[in-house]
């Protein structure tokens, strides 16, 4: 009985996380369209609801009722599991992401994360690495040249950007002496990591953009040259699963940027709840990602590789070297 009762808060937290994550892309698509629109000096969606706020709902209904088409020559099994493979990692990552210090409720201490793993950061990097399998499988299973090209690009991109991304957080881990995200946050009491580790932040931010496959690194789904890249052949609900995964990866990256380099829930004004302050920062990063998207053009394939191997990797190694030297 004891054990069953201790499961209840975990189950409730899981339900909340899954529910929020499933609904989160709706306001995010609205936000993205609004930001795109205002950069291009137009108001964006205006007609469905107040300032187009209900537009994502209308779009969701449209997507869900559309024909779910599978190409004749496609590998049907892989084709149908690929969106799920793409969608699971961003959900899994949120297991380890804390959104605040533990709070007291109903006489017990409740941690504001599903599980504050002591290797949280490693878990997140490893799990989010799986996400690219969704892209690869989708491109391969579609049996279409654009889709395969898109997934080939995403493989190359992942190899060149996972490494600097992993290296760039080592400096943070060295400073905190732990891979537990809550400890990394509490080690930033007083001084945020972005001040101590500006190079690390830069490398993490850029390789994070590449990891999320967003402009200027959105080669796997380059609309201009590949149709829609790996999800060219997808439609209806499967396509919407890919969209969901894409937006969630952006949210994950915003969370990681804030937790690792911008002090997580620390440093807010006193009247704001810590969690709210964290979410504010996360929202800011999501906005920055969207702002970048509508400012920069896409890098060429070779430029992408050059940046990854010749710029970010040496920079991240240098960052480790310098922080190691300073700490010793």
């Amino acid at each position, binding site marked *: 009985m004891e054990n069953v009762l201790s499961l209840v808060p975990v189950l409730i937290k899981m339900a909340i996380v899954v529910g929020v994550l499933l609904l989160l892309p709706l306001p995010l698509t609205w936000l993205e369209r609004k930001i795109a629109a*205002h*950069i291009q*000096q137009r108001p964006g969606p205006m007609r469905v609801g107040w300032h187009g706020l209900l537009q994502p709902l209308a779009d969701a209904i449209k997507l869900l009722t559309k024909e779910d088409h599978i190409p004749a020559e496609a590998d049907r099994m892989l084709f149908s599991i690929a969106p799920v493979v793409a969608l699971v990692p961003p959900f899994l990552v949120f297991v380890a992401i804390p959104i605040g210090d533990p709070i007291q409720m109903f006489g017990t201490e409740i941690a504001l994360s599903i599980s504050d793993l002591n290797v949280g950061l490693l878990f997140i990097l490893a799990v989010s690495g799986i996400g690219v399998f969704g892209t690869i499988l989708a491109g391969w299973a579609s049996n279409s040249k654009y889709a395969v090209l898109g997934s080939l690009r995403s493989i190359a991109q992942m190899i060149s950007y996972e490494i600097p991304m992993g290296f760039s957080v080592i400096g943070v881990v060295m400073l905190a002496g732990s891979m537990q995200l809550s400890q990394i946050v509490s080690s930033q009491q007083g001084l945020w990591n972005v001040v101590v580790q500006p190079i690390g932040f830069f490398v993490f931010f850029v390789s994070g953009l590449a990891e999320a496959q967003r402009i200027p690194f959105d080669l796997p789904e380059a609309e201009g040259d590949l149709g829609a890249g790996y999800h060219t052949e997808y439609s209806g609900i499967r396509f919407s699963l890919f969209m969901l995964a894409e937006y969630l990866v952006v949210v994950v990256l915003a969370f990681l940027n804030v937790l690792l380099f911008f002090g997580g829930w620390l440093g807010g004004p006193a009247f704001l709840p810590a969690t709210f302050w964290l979410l504010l920062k996360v929202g800011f990063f999501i906005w920055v990602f969207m702002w970048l998207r509508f*400012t920069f053009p896409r890098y060429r394939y070779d430029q992408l590789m050059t940046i990854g191997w010749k710029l970010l990797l040496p920079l991240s190694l240098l960052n480790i070297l310098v922080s190691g030297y300073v700490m010793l």
Partner: protein
Amino acid sequence: MARTGVKRSNWIGRVLLVDLLAGLRLTLGYMVSKTVTHHYPDYEKWVPYQRHRGHHFIKTNDEGEVNCVACELCSQICPCDCITVIPFENEKGDRRPKVFDINLARCLYCGLCEDACPADAIKLGQEYEVATHHRGTLVVHLEDLVKAPGKAGNGGVVRPAKLDRNSGLRSVTQTGPKDAGLDWWSRIRRER
């Protein structure tokens, strides 16, 4: 920046990503600037210039009679044969049109009928919303033409308007305090 010639930064600028930051600053400026889009058909409507050739209208004289003398010059000159005029003699013995139909689906709004008209009757006005669900309603008759809006007095502005959902989804300009209308060109952000 693009118009005044691209300035390339030196290596310090490139290391500090000055070019990228300049781009970001530009888009941020646009993000907080006003939009230039007409909120048509919900709140605003473009009133065309006086020279605009839109939906035809027929002028009437002081007694409320149409100016048209049914000479059929307009239907003769019409390059797409969209005007049908059948004359008759009214009580006063004047020659007037019994039927004056214009098929707007065929009309190319060239304005030759306006030029040909000897009686200052047929004109092309400011109305440009002629979309409809039925092709038949595109054939307009004499009474429609008399009622149709004339040339825009002070055109070339954006006026507050409202979408009229009852009578065939037209955007109707509102006469109100902002009667003069808004100079749309003033919304456009120009770089010096």
